[in-house]
């Protein structure tokens, strides 16, 4: 139940990966027969993924991970606009990959990063966003399509309009939305991550729309054509493109099914666990993701207790983070951060599993509280 980190591989991804291992081992840049075969495979994968996302093939590039695609989008978007401005505007609930860039960017001379807050439900403050993107010197604006931690869908269309009026390109991190929710419109750059839609790990996708100024932050031959430095894992890329198509074919029906399961979890958790807060927007949310926090509960203890019963969940509590800080998303929303559990479902999640989760959770929470003397 941690599809928001990585979903199990879609059967189509597995098939495509195995087939591509035979034909896709060569370097697609080489001119001999095996290289040309690899080139054809690459171009087919690129065209297929572009069609899936509704963009042109030459606007889409593959990267060694979702995070690599995020870095390429933000660093390349900033570099391309260096003459127009030096400020990165971003929401407070971006993925840490964006926030790490913001911190480093703000630490250099002449550069600047401006954070825009969210409300208690995790929804972007549009007035503050509009003011920030309109300010002089804004180079790039970054907005996650939907919160990866609480599932709240962001007002990307309105945010994009504000950016467009200000003449500022918008980057959208769509890693959590692709194959779960409609892809927003109005952006200039977008990235996604294959292992979140059932593709293999180690493939990120970057789209840079025509007319967007982008300059590679990496030492490569062609600074203006988005392309990852080094050889791509072509078999994984082929599997990513094939599974994207398959996942999109199932997306509408899966969204209905998973959304009903999430509603069941929301109601079940509030009904059976005392002193619990389900966080995030109950309606404007991703269909497959739900997050709640239990008072007086150590998030790490709950995560391990659930793991002992075969449930994989993630947590935004400080005790589960390498930094020992609570999740920046929960902090930005001002909601409880300890005892936090994020559940995210995928195509293999069954109703019976959700019911078993709801059956064991209250006892595990009660045990941990009892141990803590509550």
């Amino acid at each position: 139940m941690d599809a928001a980190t990585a979903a199990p591989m879609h059967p189509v991804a597995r098939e495509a990966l195995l087939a591509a291992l035979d034909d896709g081992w060569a370097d697609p840049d080489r001119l001999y027969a095996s290289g040309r075969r690899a080139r054809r495979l690459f171009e087919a994968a690129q065209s297929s993924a572009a069609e899936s996302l509704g963009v042109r093939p030459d606007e889409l590039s593959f990267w060694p991970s979702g995070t690599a695609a995020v870095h390429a989008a933000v660093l390349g978007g900033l570099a391309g606009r260096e003459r127009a401005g030096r400020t990165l505007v971003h929401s407070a609930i971006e993925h840490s990959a964006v926030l790490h860039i913001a911190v480093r960017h703000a630490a250099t001379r002449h550069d600047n990063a401006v954070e825009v807050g969210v409300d208690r439900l995790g929804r972007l403050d549009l007035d503050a966003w509009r003011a920030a993107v309109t300010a002089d010197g804004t180079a790039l604006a970054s907005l996650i399509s939907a919160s990866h931690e609480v599932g709240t869908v962001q007002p990307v269309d309105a945010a994009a309009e504000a950016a467009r009026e200000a003449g500022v390109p918008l980057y959208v991190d769509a890693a959590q939305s692709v194959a779960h929710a409609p892809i927003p419109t109005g952006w200039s750059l977008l990235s996604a991550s294959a292992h979140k839609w059932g593709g293999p790990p180690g493939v990120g996708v970057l789209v840079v729309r025509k007319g967007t100024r982008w300059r590679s932050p990496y030492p490569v031959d062609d600074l203006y054509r988005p392309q990852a430095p080094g050889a791509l894992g072509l078999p994984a890329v082929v599997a990513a493109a094939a599974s994207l198509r398959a996942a999109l074919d199932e997306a509408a029906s899966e969204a209905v099914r998973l959304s009903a399961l999430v509603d069941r979890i929301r109601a079940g958790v509030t009904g059976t666990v005392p002193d619990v807060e389900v966080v995030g927007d109950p309606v404007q949310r991703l269909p497959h993701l739900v997050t709640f926090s239990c008072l007086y509960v150590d998030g790490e203890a709950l995560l391990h207790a659930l793991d002992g019963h075969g449930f994989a969940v993630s947590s935004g509590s400080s005790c589960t983070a390498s930094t020992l800080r609570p999740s920046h998303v929960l902090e930005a929303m001002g909601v409880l951060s300890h005892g936090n559990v994020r559940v995210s479902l995928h195509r293999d999640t069954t109703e019976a599993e959700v019911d078993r989760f709801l059956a064991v959770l209250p006892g595990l929470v009660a045990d941990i509280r009892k141990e803590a003397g509550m």
Partner: protein
Amino acid sequence: MVLDCLGQRCPLPVIALARSIADVPVGGTVTVLADDPAAANDIPAWCRMKSQDYLGSPAPNSYTVRRAT
């Protein structure tokens, strides 16, 4: 009342606060000293969930709560 929870990891400061609030008269205050980074977020969140008044942070690593109910 002052609760010294310095050095304690979350959720311990919030647990200490919840246990002590019964000893505070309605309208009285309790100040929690806590240096876990989650306390700044979780003590106000506890107040909201438990309908108590969060009065703010008078000093670093210090959070004051007024018993409302």
